[in-house]
């Protein structure tokens, strides 16, 4: 029996980790929801959820003294997934409500969405290249609910979506992945992608 993987969901008081927990648990993973490095260390992969304003989220991470910890974990190669706002937090800086520094784990800025006020609802994603952890989800519809976009450096862009023109909705740099949509709320397609990404990063 291959040992079960354990996933650490970073709890910094922002966003809804209950749905993330449920989705991952449903896929057969053990989950720890915590802000304690000691607990998060003892996991195979970290998930950084997040909903709402960039600035408020970074403040919360600082308050929980997690900024340096997360930077250290990711740069040491530990599998790491940022979901929705959690993807944007990977950026250098965000222009939402003035300038706020992010975790700086993937080069690029978070800027207001230029094609519309918001990107709300189901939209199909286009996978860049044929990274096996993303390829099976090419063309699948995922659920989006954001108004800022992480314009990551092109070499790290993994998935795109489109209104009029394409914009990044998924990034990957080594064992660090960011997804702008909510896989835990994208029904079958979302759960499949979540499984592929976790298995791919932990392989």
């Amino acid at each position, binding site marked *: 029996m291959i040992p079960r993987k354990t996933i650490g969901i970073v709890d910094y008081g922002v966003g809804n980790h209950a749905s993330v927990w449920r989705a991952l648990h449903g896929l057969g993973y053990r989950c720890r929801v915590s802000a304690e490095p000691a607990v998060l260390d003892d996991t195979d992969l970290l998930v950084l959820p997040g909903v709402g304003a960039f600035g408020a989220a970074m403040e919360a991470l600082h308050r929980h003294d997690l900024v340096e910890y997360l930077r250290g974990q990711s740069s040491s190669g530990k599998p790491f997934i940022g979901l929705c706002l959690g993807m944007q937090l990977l950026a250098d800086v965000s222009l939402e409500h003035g300038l706020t520094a992010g975790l700086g784990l993937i080069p690029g800025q978070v800027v207001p969405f230029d094609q519309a006020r918001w990107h*709300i609802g189901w939209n199909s994603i286009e996978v860049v290249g044929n990274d096996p952890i993303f390829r099976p989800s090419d063309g699948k519809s995922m659920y989006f609910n954001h108004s800022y976009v992480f314009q990551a450096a092109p070499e790290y862009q993994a998935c795109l979506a489109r209104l009029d023109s394409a914009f990044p909705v998924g990034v990957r740099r080594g064992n660090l992945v960011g997804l702008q949509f909510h896989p835990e709320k994208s*029904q079958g397609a979302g759960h499949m992608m979540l499984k592929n990404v976790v298995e791919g990063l932990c392989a």
Partner: protein
Amino acid sequence: MIQKRLIGVVTVRDGWAVQSFGYGRYLPLGRPEILVENLDRWGADEILLQVIDATRQGRGPDMALLEQIGKRGLSTPLIYAGGVRSAADAVAIVAAAADRVVVDALIRDNASEVIKAGEQLGNQAMIGSLPLSIEHGAVRWFDYRTRTSEPMSEELLELLEAGVLSEALVIDWKHEGQPGGFDHALLDALPKGVPVIAFGGLSSAPQLVQALKMPHVVAVAVGNFLSYREHAIQAFKAELLGVPLRPAAYQQTLHA
């Protein structure tokens, strides 16, 4: 390409899911969390859970119900409405289980809290509930607490135009529960560019298509008319031709 959305509505009164007719008559349906779970299985694009007696009885949001639904592991985006009294309420609702929040009375009582909630959660999470009717050619905004109608206030229009509220849930409350009752004229009642969700008396595919064909109508919501047959969501989706919509999906459970 962004798809339009078919939203399944679960209306809750006295803790029980009900069918609602014209904001006044109700028939019992069952346990809210089981109706929500069913819509999740059917593949609704979003689920709107509206607790219609929370504000009137002075209770805040139904956190117990939200926690219960959160525990069941929903894989469909959830919108909550009912009893939102503050930004703090809105944040708690999202932390419990919801992805987006609908405000109605709060717009009238304390618009600044609506703005604050938008700042904390992101305005894309905020939806304005607009029960409207047309009285002698003029659009009236209904206040279900006083059961009176008045023109839409400047403050409301400002919240919509400034994008504090990302979408407007336009409810034809008079025709709610009436087959084919929805008055499409209501969909032109709002300032240009405000995305609209149509709800109230939408029972047939042609009605839904007519609404969804309008560029600013981003979603249609159906409540009572989803409770009369199996796979109601998939059945509607199969008939919504010429509209960009996620196709109907039938769950297949492969047991060990």
